[in-house]
């Protein structure tokens, strides 16, 4: 590959200065003349109830209140906050059983903080005072917090379309026997010398993005519904709002504001339907809805928790002859992305190791918690926790080094990826394992820790990960990019790709500048206007740099070709003889024969007759190109993660020492952003496995919807972080890049659990692995 001048460079992020100066505008920072405040009134006292009485009249009388809206005052159409229906064919959507079961305001409360009505007022304070005057009565219903409870035949039904409260299972026509995998698992197990089997629990983790959800909307005087939101998916939310409010898409606009973190929390719609319903009720006025942190916590989607049974058969030499697994997740109160995670959890399993046969079953049941949706990793952390622990249990029994086993049995180039039949085009996992083990001192530490006897025991664990770069061929992957050259040969790159803070817009600008051969400052990314840019799925499945980058390259190459072709005609030479440096186009063998790029672009735009010849010079028209891009692959990245920690066997407390990630990135377009994604992912992954879970009391009321009671790892809790980037360019990715958005969170789950296992010889089957669980396990074990 030729030398790159911008891609791969450690330049400052394009949005860094506005953020460090406090000038970046998030949705809640917007101010408009005459702006009103909206408040969603929620049911805080019940997780499952029928609204038997709703009297809004007293609230409407509160000074400063403009309007109060009940369920009957807004569209009665229901929606699905998720977006899978816009990413598969209609036929596939039917097959998967996607349904629209969410009302804007409800009279059947299905989780705590379900919205029952809305208030629009001159001030936030007036809206809050009015909320206290809402007269509401409830008939409490039985509360179901697990699949076992809600699948009971006598249970209250969440939706007539989902009998038995079974929101989803792998559908028979696409998945014979409702299972995903290959080979004869039962026959495989027969051949096994060793079978390891257990049921694990994976927790309900919250994204905890720092910017709470906030929105502004106006139904303007031209009959257009405008919504400002930090959604991950401006184009899909645009389409969903048009559908919900029965408006042509030309009468809807989504303005994407700076995204204050997302991690899946803004995948699809959250509060957009409610704020837009308020805007429709008071045309001509901007309305701001700012979620409180507690509202954000209990009224927007989280990770899918559930029970994960897994069984793996091995030959004595470590050959994994068969794997059988079943994940039952707790869906929460609404369907949303019901089909997604239940499938992908098994897909990541399929993509990891070369089991002789595999059978995965996935289903989910409605429960009375906040609905589960997308969270970084999308089922992958859930799979990592049981899989990597069972592999280590087998390695321990068979006396095989866990790193060596993984090197031998991980899937590799040419093997089926997570989508069976779709082969891996690149894989540097063996190198990740080798370099990671060497850097952290794996062999020495494993040997040393095997001989420990004291109160404090150290452990080191390893886990692997496969993920994806975009979700094709399972889901639509489509990004449209337009590139226009201005008079001065600077480039406007118009697209709808989101930057969730991870640096995607910096990386896409680098890719555009590199491809055009322009400096960074001559490229501007125009984003955030859903009516100005072409289609884009939005930020999910770690796709933005990979798919967006591919689209940017295609459009930029087209523009550059047009520029050079025009220059060839201008210089009366052959296009193949031309090169461009510093935006001067010249003949390779005759550098005197040259023209500025801006001369060519100006002549195309200012197409007027030359006073001497009476004819215009050059070719007419502004140089412009567009790519409607569907990527050829999903180039999965891989990584190996090593975690070292110390367990206090008297208190059960854990101290993290180091987390090392060796990562198969293909190419790091913007290395600081790649490292930032891995660092942040590791913080969330270690949290998922060690400290983080949203807890509910028996009535389904959340016990820890705040940063004090929900424990995330802080700056002093974090271990030393080490990243090793393996750059072996992928054949399909932009400049060889693969994704890195979600992956950092995945393998710390297995690696930390395995480090605990290494330290104390016990596997903890319920995440998060808290000191209480460790202490309990130690007390139940005679060795301690």
């Amino acid at each position: 590959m030729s030398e790159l001048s911008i891609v791969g460079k450690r330049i400052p992020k394009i949005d860094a200065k506005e953020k460090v100066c406090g000038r970046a505008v998030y949705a809640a920072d917007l101010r408009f003349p005459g702006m009103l405040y909206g408040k969603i009134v929620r049911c805080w006292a019940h997780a499952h109830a029928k609204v038997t009485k709703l009297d809004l009249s007293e609230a409407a009388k509160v000074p400063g209140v403009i309007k109060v809206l009940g369920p009957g005052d807004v569209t009665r159409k229901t929606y699905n906050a998720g977006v899978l229906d816009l990413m598969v064919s209609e036929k596939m959507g039917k097959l998967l059983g996607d349904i629209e079961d969410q009302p804007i305001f409800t009279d059947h409360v299905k989780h705590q903080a379900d919205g029952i009505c809305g208030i629009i007022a001159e001030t936030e304070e007036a809206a809050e005072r009015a909320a206290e005057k809402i007269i509401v009565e409830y008939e409490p219903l039985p509360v179901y917090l697990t699949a076992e409870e809600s699948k009971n035949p006598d249970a209250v039904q969440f939706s007539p379309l989902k009998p038995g409260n079974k929101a989803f299972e792998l559908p028979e026509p696409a998945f014979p026997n409702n299972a995903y995998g290959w080979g004869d698992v039962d026959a495989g197990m027969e051949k096994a010398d060793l079978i390891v089997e257990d049921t694990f629990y994976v927790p309900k983790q919250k994204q905890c993005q720092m910017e709470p959800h906030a929105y502004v909307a106006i139904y303007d005087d031209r009959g257009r519904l405008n919504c400002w939101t930090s959604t991950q998916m401006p184009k899909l939310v645009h389409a969903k709002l048009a559908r919900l409010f029965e408006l042509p898409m030309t009468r809807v606009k989504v303005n994407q504001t700076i995204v204050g973190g997302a991690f899946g929390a803004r995948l699809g719609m959250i509060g957009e339907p409610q704020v837009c319903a308020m805007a429709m009720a008071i045309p001509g006025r901007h309305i701001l809805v700012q979620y409180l942190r507690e509202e954000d916590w209990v009224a927007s989607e989280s990770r899918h928790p559930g029970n994960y049974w897994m069984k793996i058969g091995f030959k004595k030499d470590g050959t994994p002859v068969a794997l059988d697994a079943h994940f039952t997740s707790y869906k929460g109160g609404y369907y949303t992305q019901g089909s997604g995670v239940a499938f992908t959890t098994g897909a990541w399993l399929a993509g990891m190791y070369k089991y002789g046969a595999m059978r995965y079953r996935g289903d989910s049941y409605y429960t009375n918690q906040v609905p589960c949706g997308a969270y970084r990793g999308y089922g992958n952390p859930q799979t990592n926790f049981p899989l990597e622990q069972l592999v280590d249990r087998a390695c321990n029994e068979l006396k095989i080094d866990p790193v060596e086993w993984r090197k031998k049995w991980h899937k590799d180039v040419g093997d089926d990826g997570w989508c069976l039949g779709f082969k891996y085009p690149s894989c540097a996992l063996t190198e990740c394992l080798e370099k990671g083990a060497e850097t952290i001192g794996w062999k020495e530490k494993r040997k040393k820790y095997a001989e420990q006897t004291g109160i404090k025991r150290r452990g080191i664990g390893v886990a692997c990960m496969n993920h994806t770069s975009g979700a094709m061929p399972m889901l639509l992957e489509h990004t449209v990019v337009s590139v226009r050259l201005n008079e001065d040969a600077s480039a406007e790159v118009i697209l709808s790709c989101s930057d969730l803070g991870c640096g995607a817009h910096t990386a896409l600008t680098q890719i555009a500048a590199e491809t055009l051969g322009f400096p960074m400052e001559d490229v501007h990314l125009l984003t955030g206007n859903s009516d100005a840019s072409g289609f884009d799925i939005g930020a999910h499945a770690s796709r933005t740099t990979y798919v967006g980058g591919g689209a940017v390259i295609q459009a930029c190459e087209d523009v550059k070709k047009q520029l050079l072709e025009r220059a060839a005609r201008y210089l009366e030479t052959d296009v193949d003889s031309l090169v461009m440096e510093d935006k001067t186009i010249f003949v390779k063998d005759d550098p005197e024969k040259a023209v500025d790029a801006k001369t060519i672009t100006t002549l195309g735009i200012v197409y007027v007759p030359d006073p001497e010849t009476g004819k215009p010079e050059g070719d007419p028209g502004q140089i412009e190109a567009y790519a409607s891009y569907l990527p050829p692959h999903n180039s999965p990245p891989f990584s190996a993660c090593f975690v070292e920690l110390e367990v206090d066997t008297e208190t059960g407390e854990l101290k993290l020492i180091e987390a090392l990630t060796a990562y198969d990135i293909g190419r790091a377009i913007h290395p600081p952003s790649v490292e930032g994604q891995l660092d942040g992912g590791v913080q969330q992954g270690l949290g998922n496995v060690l400290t983080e879970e949203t807890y509910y009391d028996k009535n389904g009321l959340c016990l820890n919807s705040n940063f004090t009671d929900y424990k995330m790892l802080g700056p002093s809790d974090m271990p030393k972080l080490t990243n090793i980037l393996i750059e072996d360019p992928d054949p399909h990715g932009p400049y060889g890049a693969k994704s890195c958005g979600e992956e950092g969170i995945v393998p710390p789950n297995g690696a930390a659990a395995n480090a605990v296992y290494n330290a104390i010889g016990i596997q903890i089957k319920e995440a998060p692995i808290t000191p209480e669980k460790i202490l309990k396990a130690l007390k139940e074990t005679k060795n301690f």
Partner: protein
Amino acid sequence: MKKCSITLYVNDKKHSLDVPVNRTLLQVLREDLAMTDVKYGCGAGECGACTVLIDGDTPILSCLTLAALADGKHITTVAGLEKDGKLHPVQQAFIDEGAIQCGYCTPGMVLKTVSFLAKNAAPTEEEIRKGLEGNICRCTGYEKIVKAVQQAAIKKEGGKV
């Protein structure tokens, strides 16, 4: 709600206001003075996004501070750090070290760092991590933020880390 008259000096600019006695400094800064560089993250003093400096370099959580109690005080928000078009060394270090992702915690994190380095010009890594406790970042794992604080310490004070 009963009101009181207060004077605030925000980033060296004087503001005389009549505010309800229960109004927080965060509300006054964001809503009444349109200083949206101060962020609402939790409203409960748990995340540090609303951090501002009071009377020089003392960090306070503006969501937990009644505006009335800030009467007569000098308040610095992140918008007040840039002088004559030049970024504060801490701001520059955050950019240089790639310590900014979504940016929502950044104003509070930068101000906390400014106050911390004023008290301890040459902190150890452990001291930096302790000093940042109370300010939550969900994007960076704190790694590059800690590096930025180290860089700022070196550049600002010529101190050793």
